[in-house]
């Protein structure tokens, strides 16, 4: 009960008349990795954006550590500091060096001392083997390196959970592996993650729960063995048949 990190209950999201999320309920426990699968446009990204309040929901509730995020006293800026978000298109800051990209959040949002943050950022960079690229600008790095920096940038905030939005979809196929390896590492070390992905093998290997979204509806959710090997719903079966 107490190890619930993020709990979304009956979340509804509309864009104009179109319902993008219909009654979606999903719980993320401490040290748990949940993979969201589903076709493009099924609502995976929207779900993540609702979770960190980049979108406002039209129904249902979202709780972080048992506190409703719909409470008017909640400051979205404070909420987001507990959730690292990684985007499909990296979104590194092109005018800042790799190190400054990582240090920006801790220094400017958490107001932590700059030299302490820099030291920590260097440790994080060493972890992904890019410590000697610290002073370079992001456009000098490969897509895979940029995405790993983006992941490390959100880790620098020491978030309670990570939201990852199709983080390998914009990458050259040869670069996907290094990013997935890093995520696998993080999963093994107990990082709580909600991952929207098209990489089915990765989802099967790394996740504790897999949730299949179709047209804004959470069709089924369960351990990867069950969802991938014995899907209960026809829609899941059809989807998996198409991506294989």
């Amino acid at each position, binding site marked *: 009960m107490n190890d619930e990190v993020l709990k979304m209950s009956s979340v509804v999201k509309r864009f104009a008349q179109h319902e993008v999320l219909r009654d979606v309920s999903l719980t993320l426990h401490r040290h748990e990795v949940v993979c969201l699968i589903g076709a493009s446009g099924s609502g995976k990204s929207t779900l993540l954006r609702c979770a*960190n309040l*980049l979108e406002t929901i039209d129904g249902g509730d979202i709780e972080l550590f048992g506190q409703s995020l719909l409470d008017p006293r909640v400051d*979205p*800026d*404070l909420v*987001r*500091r507990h*959730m*690292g*978000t990684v*985007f499909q*298109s990296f*979104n*590194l*800051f*092109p*005018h800042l060096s790799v190190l400054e990209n990582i240090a*920006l*959040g801790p220094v*400017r*949002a*958490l107001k932590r001392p700059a030299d302490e943050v820099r030291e920590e950022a260097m440790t994080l960079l060493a972890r992904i083997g890019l410590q000697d690229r610290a002073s370079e600008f992001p*456009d000098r790095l490969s897509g895979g390196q940029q995405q790993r920096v*983006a992941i490390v*940038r*959100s880790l620098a*905030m020491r978030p309670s959970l990570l939201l990852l939005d199709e983080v390998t979809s914009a990458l050259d196929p040869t670069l996907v592996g290094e990013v997935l390896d890093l995520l696998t590492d993080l999963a093994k070390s107990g990082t709580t993650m909600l991952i929207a992905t098209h990489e089915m093998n990765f989802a099967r290997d790394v996740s504790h729960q897999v949730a299949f979204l179709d047209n804004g509806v959470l069709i089924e959710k369960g351990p990867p063995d069950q969802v991938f090997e014995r899907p209960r719903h026809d829609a899941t079966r059809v989807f998996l048949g198409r991506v294989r």
Partner: protein
Amino acid sequence: MSSETDAAVPDAPPRLFAPRRRLLFKGRNGLAASLASSAALVAVILAILFATSGGQSFRFYFFNPHFLWIALRGNPLKAVGSVLGGIVTNIWIFLLCEVLVLLFGLIIAWVRVTTTPLLVPFRLLATVYADIFRGIPFVLVIYIVGYGLPQLSLGALSNQSPAVYGCIALTLTYSAYVSEVYRAGLHSVPHGQILAARSLGLTQYATMRRVVLPQAVRTVIPPLLNDFISLQKDTALVSLIGVVETSRAAQIGQETYFNGSFLTMSALLFLAMTIPMTRFTDHLIDKDREKRLAGAQ
């Protein structure tokens, strides 16, 4: 295999050599071609100045060494000020206005793109301001400010020299233009940058200050410099409310000596001021284009 796919291969080797006369304008002959066209252009200009019937009087009126020298020195006995002395006024007005316009324009743009409810009335005000001062001819603005503010009896604000009113008018008008340049720059930063910054828990202000603005300023520098080139020239318009700067000094000299060399000297001084700026701006634009082309590879 089939005759359709073979159609692209010609029977005989294709002709690759251009006719001789076309080669004159291409490749290795480029230098010769450019020298030839330059010489022709110079010849036409010299012909107009030296071979036409009006050429001599034109040269005497605008390029008389004697009067060019007087323009530079001025003649206190005839109450003709130095054109060179006048340009100092233009320069300090320009430098002062440049700083004020950069600041004020940024504030206006910032207010216009910020969505904080607290700033709603200011946003409206900034929009109205930008509309008004981009819409009124500067000549009218300078008269309204120059003759209007002193009448308001607003203490120190109504008790200034015409040059100060000139600066206020220039700042008001140019800030309106520059705020639009800034605003375009702020809007040119990809939305993903804002999402990434907000996802790190940065406030709207910190996002603007640390992520959006630094990127916007880079794209905005060349168009800003363009506006400053025209600001440099428009400092001449403060003469309308009685400031004797270089163009007004030149006009006085021309009326006193009935010779246009004063105007020429003033124009040359303006060029000495603006050409470094225009060259620098073009250099920045070229560098930016090169960077973009390199990025596309």
